[in-house]
């Protein structure tokens, strides 16, 4: 029964509440293996659980945020795999990858101080999908014809390789107001 409880909790947290946000790979772990899914489940969930995430740094530019968690404030319009779960951090690429110099920029509000910050969502390139901490949030995101704010595009431009690995979210400064699309 514990198994079923856990299963259920994972389902409701990850899937039903905001489908498409959580890791398809984590979910794959969930569904793929049936009986064997349950042992995998805590692994998938560790990333969401600051206490268990090991390196959960506190007070990163504001609230007690967990950069391995999709809900972390500065990921408000990220669509990809979080580099902080892939051997990098929320501001740096994992070893052996290259940060794309070309990217898109938007704003996210930091609940700690209520301010909007300008965020640069750079992709790390040169290795295949990291496959961890898939996160898809679209606050202020726009379709591809409005290229300033599109997160569907593989932004591995200006890099040696266009293979997408994961994404970071770097603060460029305080915004005087939220981006207009908000």
């Amino acid at each position, binding site marked *: 029964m514990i198994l079923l409880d856990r299963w259920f909790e994972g389902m409701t947290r990850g899937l*039903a509440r905001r*489908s498409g946000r959580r890791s*398809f790979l984590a979910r794959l772990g969930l569904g793929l293996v049936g009986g064997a899914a349950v042992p995998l489940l805590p692994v998938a969930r560790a990333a969401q659980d600051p206490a268990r995430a090991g390196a959960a740094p506190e007070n990163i530019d504001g609230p007690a945020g967990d950069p391995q968690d999709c809900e972390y404030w500065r990921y408000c319009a990220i669509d990809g795999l979080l580099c902080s779960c892939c051997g990098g951090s929320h501001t740096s690429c994992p070893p052996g990858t290259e940060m794309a110099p070309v990217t898109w920029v938007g704003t996210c509000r930091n609940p700690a101080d209520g301010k909007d910050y300008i965020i640069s969502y750079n992709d790390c390139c040169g290795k295949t999908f990291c496959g961890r901490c898939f996160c898809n949030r679209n606050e202020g995101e726009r379709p591809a014809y409005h*290229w300033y704010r599109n997160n569907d*595009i*593989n932004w591995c431009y200006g890099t040696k390789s266009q293979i*997408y690995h994961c994404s970071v979210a770097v603060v460029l400064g305080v915004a005087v107001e939220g981006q207009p*699309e908000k």
Partner: protein
Amino acid sequence: MGAAAEGDITLLMSCFGRLGRAVACGVVAAALSGFATDSVGEEPAAASSDGAEKWGGVAQVPDGPSDHRVWVHDRVLEHTLLFDGDSGQMLGAVDGASGVGARPAYPAPGRNELYVVETYYSRGLRGARTDQLVVYDAKTLSVRAEIRIPNKAADTGQGIALGAVLDGERFFAALNQSPGSSVTMIDLESRELVEEIVTGGCSMVYPVGPRRFGMLCGDGTALLVELTEQGGKRRAVSSEAFFDVVTDPVTVAGVRDGAKWYFASFDGLLYEVDFSAEKPVASEPWSLFTDDERGAGWRIGGFQHLALHRSSRRLYSIVHQGGTGTHKDAGLSIWVYDLTTRERVMQIDAPNVLIPFMRPQMGIERGSLILRILDYVLPPPGVHTIAVTQDAAPLLFARNVDLGAVAVLDAMSGEHVGDLEEVGLSGTTLVVP
């Protein structure tokens, strides 16, 4: 479900580690999990007198009624699988090399061919990049030709409008985004690159004739590109601005009816854009939601979230309740509209695609009680993408991008009639040939 299943898992997991070689891996995994064991469309090999079967048979895509087929793309395993919606059988596969997003197969039934825009690297995942249009034989699913195109093919997770076979099947238009945008024109007859048409500020490709296609632009207009006999650019004309990119943009998941395309805005306004004249013209939009529904937070959303059954003029739209910024969220409902009366004629509950996703993994019998219990207790994840066949007894296919199963519905009654299982790991598109 013992060692064998664990074998499957390890295998699939190792696919993740080496995505580039996932194709080979996928084939093995497919063989292991059993869906490639029956060669569809082949007569069973006659056993010789000593009981040995004929060795070396290779199937072809069967002829016969093909109205209910669908191509299911997988962005992780980087290929597209062909399924029969009635039997649930897989009929074959074509590859599509590396990229984050949709690299679907575009069929040209008249030529008996399929096209895939590919990007690959000389050393698997490293080395020099090469982009090409790969031409597949639709019956043997083997490669007929490779046409080099500029190394700029758009790589995005969104939609099937990244390329198009234009009417008459003479030209293929492939979208580039680098991130400046352009369209590469390819002559399918001569198998040659025609030219690259720069289309600044516009994106996606919407075919509207043998030598015409439309695009959507960041200033709220639509663009019509007209081609010469040879498929080069003759002229490009913009419509008046009809939507606001900042306040209520349209999604790129349009649906086509002849020279008209329908686009829905984030807030649920439906625009009809007519590309048949000199200049594209957008109609006054109408709302897919009443004020009450909008007040209750109903919104459109997903990836390929609209589908149109042309002869009955039924428009299928995935909907959910949510706030701004939820335009890519899955929906638990599919609302059906009559485009002529602009009325909603049906509401379909999206089937719980978790069930057909889990069933083969858990080794549960089809139709068993435990499956029905799971269906009852597990919250449905909703669907992101739909497609409808165009025959008189149409099927509606629905998928959640992150689950390897596709639900099959009777498009007229909304009844859930079956599922396509083990369709892969993740993908945003469904293409009905």
